[in-house]
Protein backbone atom coordinates (compact mmCIF):
# COMPACT_ATOMS: atom_id res chain seq x y z
CA UNK A 1 0.00 0.00 0.00
CA UNK A 2 1.47 3.33 -1.01
CA UNK A 3 1.33 6.42 1.16
CA UNK A 4 -1.33 7.88 -1.05
CA UNK A 5 -3.55 4.82 -0.61
CA UNK A 6 -3.08 5.00 3.12
CA UNK A 7 -4.02 8.67 3.08
CA UNK A 8 -7.21 7.94 1.13
CA UNK A 9 -7.99 4.99 3.38
CA UNK A 10 -7.71 7.25 6.44
CA UNK A 11 -9.33 10.51 5.37
CA UNK A 12 -11.68 9.38 2.59
CA UNK A 13 -12.70 5.98 3.84
CA UNK A 14 -15.77 5.08 1.76
CA UNK A 15 -17.15 2.62 4.31
CA UNK A 16 -16.96 5.16 7.14
CA UNK A 17 -18.38 7.90 4.97
CA UNK A 18 -21.34 5.76 3.98
CA UNK A 19 -21.97 4.79 7.58
CA UNK A 20 -21.93 8.34 8.92
CA UNK A 21 -23.48 10.18 5.98
CA UNK A 22 -27.00 10.10 7.54
CA UNK A 23 -25.62 11.63 10.75
CA UNK A 24 -23.87 14.42 8.87
CA UNK A 25 -26.99 15.14 6.82
CA UNK A 26 -29.05 15.29 9.99
CA UNK A 27 -26.43 17.69 11.38
CA UNK A 28 -26.61 19.80 8.23
CA UNK A 29 -30.34 20.17 8.82
CA UNK A 30 -29.68 21.51 12.34
CA UNK A 31 -27.00 23.88 10.98
CA UNK A 32 -29.44 25.22 8.40
CA UNK A 33 -32.13 25.64 11.06
CA UNK A 34 -29.88 27.64 13.38
CA UNK A 35 -28.50 29.69 10.48
CA UNK A 36 -31.97 30.52 9.16
CA UNK A 37 -33.30 31.51 12.57
CA UNK A 38 -30.23 33.63 13.30
CA UNK A 39 -30.33 35.47 9.97
CA UNK A 40 -34.06 36.30 10.17
CA UNK A 41 -34.14 37.26 13.86
CA UNK A 42 -30.77 39.05 13.88
CA UNK A 43 -31.44 41.21 10.83
CA UNK A 44 -34.98 42.10 11.95
CA UNK A 45 -33.82 43.04 15.45
CA UNK A 46 -30.91 45.04 14.01
CA UNK A 47 -33.23 46.97 11.70
CA UNK A 48 -35.69 47.56 14.55
CA UNK A 49 -32.91 48.96 16.77
CA UNK A 50 -31.65 51.22 13.97
CA UNK A 51 -35.18 52.56 13.41
CA UNK A 52 -35.66 53.13 17.15
CA UNK A 53 -32.34 54.96 17.20
CA UNK A 54 -33.42 57.28 14.38
CA UNK A 55 -36.21 58.67 16.59
CA UNK A 56 -33.45 60.40 18.52
CA UNK A 57 -34.33 59.93 22.20
CA UNK A 58 -31.04 60.40 23.98
CA UNK A 59 -31.38 57.89 26.87
CA UNK A 60 -32.75 55.26 24.47
CA UNK A 61 -29.89 55.86 22.04
CA UNK A 62 -27.27 55.53 24.74
CA UNK A 63 -28.82 52.21 25.75
CA UNK A 64 -28.87 50.96 22.15
CA UNK A 65 -25.24 51.99 21.59
CA UNK A 66 -24.21 50.20 24.79
CA UNK A 67 -26.00 46.96 23.84
CA UNK A 68 -24.52 47.10 20.34
CA UNK A 69 -21.01 47.73 21.67
CA UNK A 70 -21.40 44.89 24.17
CA UNK A 71 -22.23 42.31 21.54
CA UNK A 72 -19.55 43.59 19.19
CA UNK A 73 -16.86 43.38 21.86
CA UNK A 74 -17.67 39.92 23.26
CA UNK A 75 -16.49 36.83 21.36
CA UNK A 76 -19.54 34.81 20.20
CA UNK A 77 -18.19 31.69 21.90
CA UNK A 78 -18.04 33.54 25.23
CA UNK A 79 -21.68 34.59 24.86
CA UNK A 80 -22.74 31.04 23.98
CA UNK A 81 -20.86 29.55 26.92
CA UNK A 82 -22.28 32.19 29.23
CA UNK A 83 -25.89 31.57 28.20
CA UNK A 84 -25.44 27.78 28.15
CA UNK A 85 -23.66 27.32 31.47
CA UNK A 86 -24.60 30.54 33.20
CA UNK A 87 -28.34 30.93 32.84
CA UNK A 88 -30.22 28.65 35.22
CA UNK A 89 -32.29 27.03 32.48
CA UNK A 90 -29.90 24.20 31.68
CA UNK A 91 -32.75 21.73 32.24
CA UNK A 92 -34.66 23.08 29.22
CA UNK A 93 -34.79 20.71 26.25
CA UNK A 94 -32.43 21.68 23.40
CA UNK A 95 -30.87 24.38 25.57
CA UNK A 96 -27.63 24.28 23.57
CA UNK A 97 -29.58 24.98 20.39
CA UNK A 98 -31.44 27.87 22.01
CA UNK A 99 -28.24 29.28 23.55
CA UNK A 100 -26.49 29.29 20.17
CA UNK A 101 -29.50 30.77 18.44
CA UNK A 102 -29.87 33.57 20.99
CA UNK A 103 -26.14 34.36 21.08
CA UNK A 104 -25.62 34.58 17.34
CA UNK A 105 -28.90 36.51 16.95
CA UNK A 106 -27.66 39.13 19.42
CA UNK A 107 -24.28 39.34 17.67
CA UNK A 108 -25.87 39.75 14.23
CA UNK A 109 -28.34 42.25 15.71
CA UNK A 110 -25.46 44.38 16.98
CA UNK A 111 -23.44 44.32 13.76
CA UNK A 112 -26.45 44.84 11.49
CA UNK A 113 -27.74 47.72 13.64
CA UNK A 114 -24.40 49.48 13.11
CA UNK A 115 -24.57 48.96 9.36
CA UNK A 116 -28.26 49.97 9.07
CA UNK A 117 -27.61 53.03 11.21
CA UNK A 118 -24.61 54.06 9.12
CA UNK A 119 -26.82 53.69 6.04
CA UNK A 120 -29.57 55.86 7.53
CA UNK A 121 -27.17 58.60 8.62
CA UNK A 122 -25.53 58.65 5.18
CA UNK A 123 -28.74 59.93 3.60
CA UNK A 124 -28.37 63.72 3.16
CA UNK A 125 -30.49 65.95 5.35
CA UNK A 126 -32.10 67.50 2.27
CA UNK A 127 -33.90 64.22 1.61
CA UNK A 128 -35.53 64.41 5.05
CA UNK A 129 -36.42 68.07 4.67
CA UNK A 130 -37.87 67.67 1.18
CA UNK A 131 -39.97 64.68 2.19
CA UNK A 132 -41.25 66.34 5.35
CA UNK A 133 -42.11 69.54 3.49
CA UNK A 134 -44.30 67.62 1.03
CA UNK A 135 -46.41 66.61 4.03
CA UNK A 136 -45.03 63.13 4.79
CA UNK A 137 -44.85 62.28 8.48
CA UNK A 138 -41.61 61.27 10.24
CA UNK A 139 -42.50 57.59 9.96
CA UNK A 140 -43.48 57.84 6.30
CA UNK A 141 -40.28 59.70 5.46
CA UNK A 142 -38.19 57.08 7.23
CA UNK A 143 -39.90 54.08 5.65
CA UNK A 144 -40.63 55.38 2.15
CA UNK A 145 -37.82 57.83 1.45
CA UNK A 146 -34.79 57.22 3.65
CA UNK A 147 -34.78 53.43 4.13
CA UNK A 148 -34.97 52.46 0.44
CA UNK A 149 -31.88 54.59 -0.25
CA UNK A 150 -30.10 53.51 2.91
CA UNK A 151 -30.68 49.78 2.38
CA UNK A 152 -29.04 49.88 -1.05
CA UNK A 153 -25.87 51.17 0.51
CA UNK A 154 -25.88 48.62 3.30
CA UNK A 155 -26.37 45.46 1.24
CA UNK A 156 -22.72 44.53 0.47
CA UNK A 157 -21.30 45.01 4.00
CA UNK A 158 -24.41 43.43 5.48
CA UNK A 159 -24.14 40.32 3.30
CA UNK A 160 -20.50 39.74 4.18
CA UNK A 161 -21.11 40.27 7.88
CA UNK A 162 -24.14 37.99 7.89
CA UNK A 163 -22.15 35.20 6.24
CA UNK A 164 -19.28 35.62 8.72
CA UNK A 165 -21.62 35.43 11.72
CA UNK A 166 -23.67 32.56 10.31
CA UNK A 167 -20.48 30.49 10.05
CA UNK A 168 -20.50 30.71 13.86
CA UNK A 169 -23.16 27.97 13.91
CA UNK A 170 -20.19 25.58 14.13
CA UNK A 171 -19.65 26.94 17.66
CA UNK A 172 -22.84 25.13 18.70
CA UNK A 173 -20.79 21.91 18.77
CA UNK A 174 -19.06 23.25 21.90
CA UNK A 175 -22.38 23.21 23.79
CA UNK A 176 -23.33 19.71 22.63
CA UNK A 177 -25.62 20.57 19.73
CA UNK A 178 -25.74 17.87 17.05
CA UNK A 179 -25.02 20.13 14.09
CA UNK A 180 -22.53 19.17 11.36
CA UNK A 181 -19.34 19.61 13.37
CA UNK A 182 -20.83 18.09 16.53
CA UNK A 183 -22.05 15.03 14.63
CA UNK A 184 -18.69 14.66 12.88
CA UNK A 185 -16.69 14.97 16.11
CA UNK A 186 -18.68 12.27 17.87
CA UNK A 187 -18.48 10.08 14.77
CA UNK A 188 -14.68 10.46 14.77
CA UNK A 189 -14.42 9.42 18.41
CA UNK A 190 -16.79 6.47 17.85
CA UNK A 191 -15.13 5.16 14.70
CA UNK A 192 -11.57 6.26 15.37
CA UNK A 193 -11.38 7.44 11.77
CA UNK A 194 -11.29 11.09 10.58
CA UNK A 195 -13.41 10.53 7.44
CA UNK A 196 -16.59 11.97 9.03
CA UNK A 197 -14.63 15.16 9.69
CA UNK A 198 -13.61 15.32 6.03
CA UNK A 199 -17.28 14.98 5.16
CA UNK A 200 -18.18 17.76 7.57
CA UNK A 201 -15.59 20.05 5.96
CA UNK A 202 -17.05 19.29 2.52
CA UNK A 203 -20.53 19.90 3.92
CA UNK A 204 -19.57 23.35 5.18
CA UNK A 205 -18.03 24.21 1.83
CA UNK A 206 -21.21 23.16 0.03
CA UNK A 207 -23.28 25.34 2.38
CA UNK A 208 -21.07 28.43 2.58
CA UNK A 209 -18.96 28.63 -0.58
CA UNK A 210 -21.94 29.71 -2.75
CA UNK A 211 -22.73 32.41 -0.17
CA UNK A 212 -19.15 33.74 -0.14
CA UNK A 213 -19.04 33.83 -3.94
CA UNK A 214 -22.43 35.56 -3.97
CA UNK A 215 -21.12 38.15 -1.49
CA UNK A 216 -18.09 38.81 -3.68
CA UNK A 217 -20.31 39.21 -6.74
CA UNK A 218 -22.59 41.59 -4.86
CA UNK A 219 -19.63 43.67 -3.75
CA UNK A 220 -18.25 44.17 -7.27
CA UNK A 221 -21.75 44.84 -8.63
CA UNK A 222 -22.52 47.50 -6.07
CA UNK A 223 -19.06 49.05 -6.20
CA UNK A 224 -20.04 51.61 -8.83
CA UNK A 225 -21.16 54.07 -6.25
CA UNK A 226 -17.87 54.41 -4.39
Amino acid at each position, binding site marked *: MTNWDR*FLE*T*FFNAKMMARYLPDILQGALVTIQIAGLVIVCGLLLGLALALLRSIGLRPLNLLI*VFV*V*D*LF*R*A*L*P*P*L*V*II*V*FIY*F*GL*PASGVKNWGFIATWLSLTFVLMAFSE*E*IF*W*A*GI*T*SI*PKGQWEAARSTGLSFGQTLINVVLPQALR*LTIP*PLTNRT*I*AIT*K*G*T*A*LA*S*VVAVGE*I*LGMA*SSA*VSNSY*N*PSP*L*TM*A*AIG*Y*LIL*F*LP*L*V*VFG*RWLETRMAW*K*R
Partner: protein
Amino acid sequence: MLDTFANAEIARQAWPILLAGLGNTLLLSVVVVPLGLLGGLILSVTATSFHHPLVRYPLMAWVDFFRAFPPLVLLILLFAGLPFAGIQITGFACVCIAFFLNTGAYYGEILRAGIESVPSGQTEAARSTGLGRLQTMLFVVLPQAVRNVLPDLLSNTLEVVKLTSLGSVVAMPELLFQARQAQSLTYNPTPIVLAAAVYFVLLWPLVRLLSRLENRALAARK
Protein backbone atom coordinates in the same frame (compact mmCIF):
# COMPACT_ATOMS: atom_id res chain seq x y z
CA MET B 1 -29.21 36.11 41.90
CA LEU B 2 -26.15 38.15 42.82
CA ASP B 3 -24.87 35.16 44.76
CA THR B 4 -24.97 33.09 41.58
CA PHE B 5 -23.71 35.48 38.93
CA ALA B 6 -21.47 37.85 40.84
CA ASN B 7 -20.28 35.90 43.84
CA ALA B 8 -17.51 38.04 45.35
CA GLU B 9 -15.80 35.14 47.10
CA ILE B 10 -15.62 33.02 43.95
CA ALA B 11 -14.58 36.03 41.89
CA ARG B 12 -11.67 36.60 44.28
CA GLN B 13 -10.60 32.95 44.02
CA ALA B 14 -10.97 32.83 40.23
CA TRP B 15 -9.18 36.12 39.56
CA PRO B 16 -5.58 34.78 39.45
CA ILE B 17 -6.68 31.94 37.14
CA LEU B 18 -8.39 34.38 34.81
CA LEU B 19 -5.41 36.72 34.86
CA ALA B 20 -3.16 33.92 33.63
CA GLY B 21 -5.73 33.30 30.90
CA LEU B 22 -5.78 36.97 29.93
CA GLY B 23 -2.00 36.90 29.58
CA ASN B 24 -2.25 33.93 27.24
CA THR B 25 -5.02 35.56 25.22
CA LEU B 26 -2.85 38.66 24.72
CA LEU B 27 0.18 36.51 23.88
CA LEU B 28 -1.85 34.49 21.39
CA SER B 29 -3.19 37.68 19.79
CA VAL B 30 0.32 39.08 19.47
CA VAL B 31 1.33 35.91 17.62
CA VAL B 32 -1.71 35.35 15.37
CA VAL B 33 -2.42 38.92 14.26
CA PRO B 34 1.02 39.38 12.60
CA LEU B 35 0.75 35.83 11.23
CA GLY B 36 -2.60 36.63 9.60
CA LEU B 37 -1.28 39.97 8.32
CA LEU B 38 1.70 38.19 6.80
CA GLY B 39 -0.59 35.71 5.07
CA GLY B 40 -2.78 38.55 3.82
CA LEU B 41 0.21 40.52 2.59
CA ILE B 42 1.54 37.56 0.60
CA LEU B 43 -1.89 36.94 -0.96
CA SER B 44 -2.69 40.55 -1.79
CA VAL B 45 0.72 41.56 -3.15
CA THR B 46 0.86 38.44 -5.33
CA ALA B 47 -2.69 38.98 -6.59
CA THR B 48 -2.08 42.61 -7.53
CA SER B 49 1.41 42.14 -8.98
CA PHE B 50 0.58 39.36 -11.43
CA HIS B 51 -2.48 39.96 -13.53
CA HIS B 52 -2.30 36.62 -15.29
CA PRO B 53 -5.54 34.63 -14.87
CA LEU B 54 -3.48 31.59 -13.83
CA VAL B 55 -2.36 33.52 -10.75
CA ARG B 56 -5.48 35.54 -10.12
CA TYR B 57 -8.16 32.86 -10.12
CA PRO B 58 -6.39 30.26 -7.98
CA LEU B 59 -5.68 32.99 -5.42
CA MET B 60 -9.31 34.09 -5.48
CA ALA B 61 -10.39 30.47 -5.02
CA TRP B 62 -7.96 30.08 -2.10
CA VAL B 63 -9.34 33.18 -0.38
CA ASP B 64 -12.97 32.18 -0.91
CA PHE B 65 -12.23 28.63 0.24
CA PHE B 66 -10.92 29.78 3.59
CA ARG B 67 -13.55 32.46 3.99
CA ALA B 68 -16.26 29.81 3.52
CA PHE B 69 -14.68 27.50 6.11
CA PRO B 70 -15.79 28.19 9.69
CA PRO B 71 -12.56 28.73 11.66
CA LEU B 72 -13.64 26.23 14.32
CA VAL B 73 -14.07 23.53 11.67
CA LEU B 74 -10.58 24.26 10.33
CA LEU B 75 -9.16 24.13 13.84
CA ILE B 76 -10.87 20.80 14.71
CA LEU B 77 -9.89 19.35 11.33
CA LEU B 78 -6.23 20.11 12.10
CA PHE B 79 -6.37 19.17 15.76
CA ALA B 80 -8.33 15.92 15.40
CA GLY B 81 -7.35 15.03 11.83
CA LEU B 82 -3.57 15.49 11.66
CA PRO B 83 -2.76 12.88 14.34
CA PHE B 84 -4.41 10.29 12.04
CA ALA B 85 -1.88 11.27 9.36
CA GLY B 86 0.87 10.50 11.86
CA ILE B 87 1.59 14.17 12.58
CA GLN B 88 1.70 14.99 16.27
CA ILE B 89 0.80 18.62 16.78
CA THR B 90 0.08 20.85 19.76
CA GLY B 91 -3.04 22.93 20.20
CA PHE B 92 -0.95 26.07 19.87
CA ALA B 93 0.50 25.02 16.51
CA CYS B 94 -3.02 24.16 15.29
CA VAL B 95 -4.28 27.59 16.28
CA CYS B 96 -1.36 29.24 14.48
CA ILE B 97 -1.89 27.30 11.24
CA ALA B 98 -5.66 27.77 11.29
CA PHE B 99 -5.37 31.50 11.92
CA PHE B 100 -2.69 31.91 9.26
CA LEU B 101 -5.05 30.32 6.72
CA ASN B 102 -8.36 31.80 7.87
CA THR B 103 -7.50 35.33 8.95
CA GLY B 104 -4.86 35.53 6.21
CA ALA B 105 -7.65 35.14 3.67
CA TYR B 106 -9.66 37.96 5.28
CA TYR B 107 -6.67 40.29 5.60
CA GLY B 108 -5.75 39.40 2.00
CA GLU B 109 -9.14 40.55 0.68
CA ILE B 110 -8.93 43.81 2.62
CA LEU B 111 -5.36 44.60 1.58
CA ARG B 112 -6.13 43.73 -2.04
CA ALA B 113 -8.98 46.26 -2.05
CA GLY B 114 -6.57 48.77 -0.48
CA ILE B 115 -3.83 48.21 -3.05
CA GLU B 116 -6.35 48.45 -5.90
CA SER B 117 -7.62 51.75 -4.49
CA VAL B 118 -4.20 53.39 -5.04
CA PRO B 119 -4.21 55.05 -8.50
CA SER B 120 -1.86 53.42 -11.02
CA GLY B 121 -0.26 56.84 -11.59
CA GLN B 122 1.40 56.42 -8.19
CA THR B 123 3.12 53.23 -9.31
CA GLU B 124 4.10 54.72 -12.67
CA ALA B 125 5.53 57.86 -11.08
CA ALA B 126 7.49 55.83 -8.51
CA ARG B 127 8.83 53.47 -11.14
CA SER B 128 9.89 56.34 -13.41
CA THR B 129 11.93 57.90 -10.61
CA GLY B 130 13.98 54.71 -10.60
CA LEU B 131 12.45 52.77 -7.71
CA GLY B 132 12.30 49.02 -8.16
CA ARG B 133 9.04 47.07 -8.18
CA LEU B 134 9.50 45.92 -4.58
CA GLN B 135 10.51 49.39 -3.44
CA THR B 136 7.48 50.89 -5.15
CA MET B 137 5.18 48.40 -3.44
CA LEU B 138 6.79 48.82 -0.01
CA PHE B 139 7.34 52.57 0.13
CA VAL B 140 4.70 54.04 -2.19
CA VAL B 141 1.72 51.76 -2.70
CA LEU B 142 1.37 49.89 0.60
CA PRO B 143 1.44 52.92 2.93
CA GLN B 144 -1.39 54.54 0.97
CA ALA B 145 -3.26 51.25 0.65
CA VAL B 146 -3.13 50.61 4.39
CA ARG B 147 -4.37 54.12 5.13
CA ASN B 148 -7.30 53.67 2.75
CA VAL B 149 -8.53 50.46 4.38
CA LEU B 150 -7.50 51.14 7.96
CA PRO B 151 -11.05 50.79 9.39
CA ASP B 152 -11.47 47.38 7.77
CA LEU B 153 -8.04 46.26 8.95
CA LEU B 154 -8.83 47.29 12.52
CA SER B 155 -12.26 45.69 12.36
CA ASN B 156 -10.71 42.42 11.21
CA THR B 157 -8.09 42.64 13.95
CA LEU B 158 -10.90 42.95 16.50
CA GLU B 159 -12.48 39.80 15.06
CA VAL B 160 -9.13 37.98 15.23
CA VAL B 161 -8.63 38.87 18.90
CA LYS B 162 -12.19 37.67 19.62
CA LEU B 163 -11.51 34.52 17.64
CA THR B 164 -8.63 33.55 19.93
CA SER B 165 -11.38 32.32 22.29
CA LEU B 166 -11.62 29.30 19.95
CA GLY B 167 -8.29 28.22 21.42
CA SER B 168 -10.28 27.00 24.44
CA VAL B 169 -11.69 24.19 22.29
CA VAL B 170 -8.21 22.74 21.68
CA ALA B 171 -7.21 23.18 25.34
CA MET B 172 -5.18 26.38 24.93
CA PRO B 173 -5.23 27.95 28.43
CA GLU B 174 -6.52 31.34 27.26
CA LEU B 175 -9.13 33.51 28.99
CA LEU B 176 -12.27 31.53 28.11
CA PHE B 177 -10.61 28.17 28.80
CA GLN B 178 -9.42 29.34 32.21
CA ALA B 179 -12.87 30.71 33.02
CA ARG B 180 -14.49 27.39 32.15
CA GLN B 181 -11.95 25.55 34.29
CA ALA B 182 -12.72 27.85 37.21
CA GLN B 183 -16.45 27.47 36.58
CA SER B 184 -16.32 23.67 36.58
CA LEU B 185 -14.26 23.72 39.78
CA THR B 186 -16.65 26.03 41.62
CA TYR B 187 -19.97 25.00 40.00
CA ASN B 188 -20.69 28.71 39.65
CA PRO B 189 -20.93 30.89 36.52
CA THR B 190 -19.21 33.88 38.15
CA PRO B 191 -15.82 33.20 36.45
CA ILE B 192 -17.50 33.27 33.02
CA VAL B 193 -19.24 36.55 33.85
CA LEU B 194 -15.88 37.89 34.97
CA ALA B 195 -14.16 36.68 31.79
CA ALA B 196 -16.85 38.34 29.67
CA ALA B 197 -16.28 41.57 31.61
CA VAL B 198 -12.53 41.34 30.96
CA TYR B 199 -13.11 40.83 27.22
CA PHE B 200 -15.46 43.80 27.20
CA VAL B 201 -13.07 46.13 29.02
CA LEU B 202 -10.23 44.99 26.75
CA LEU B 203 -12.07 45.45 23.46
CA TRP B 204 -14.59 48.20 24.10
CA PRO B 205 -12.20 51.07 23.20
CA LEU B 206 -11.49 49.42 19.85
CA VAL B 207 -15.21 48.94 19.19
CA ARG B 208 -15.91 52.61 19.96
CA LEU B 209 -13.10 53.76 17.66
CA LEU B 210 -14.30 51.48 14.87
CA SER B 211 -17.87 52.60 15.15
CA ARG B 212 -16.72 56.19 14.60
CA LEU B 213 -14.45 55.30 11.69
CA GLU B 214 -17.11 53.17 9.97
CA ASN B 215 -19.81 55.78 10.23
CA ARG B 216 -17.49 58.31 8.70
CA ALA B 217 -16.43 55.93 5.92
CA LEU B 218 -19.98 55.03 4.89
CA ALA B 219 -21.11 58.66 4.99
CA ALA B 220 -18.16 59.65 2.80
CA ARG B 221 -19.04 57.01 0.24
CA LYS B 222 -22.08 58.96 -0.92
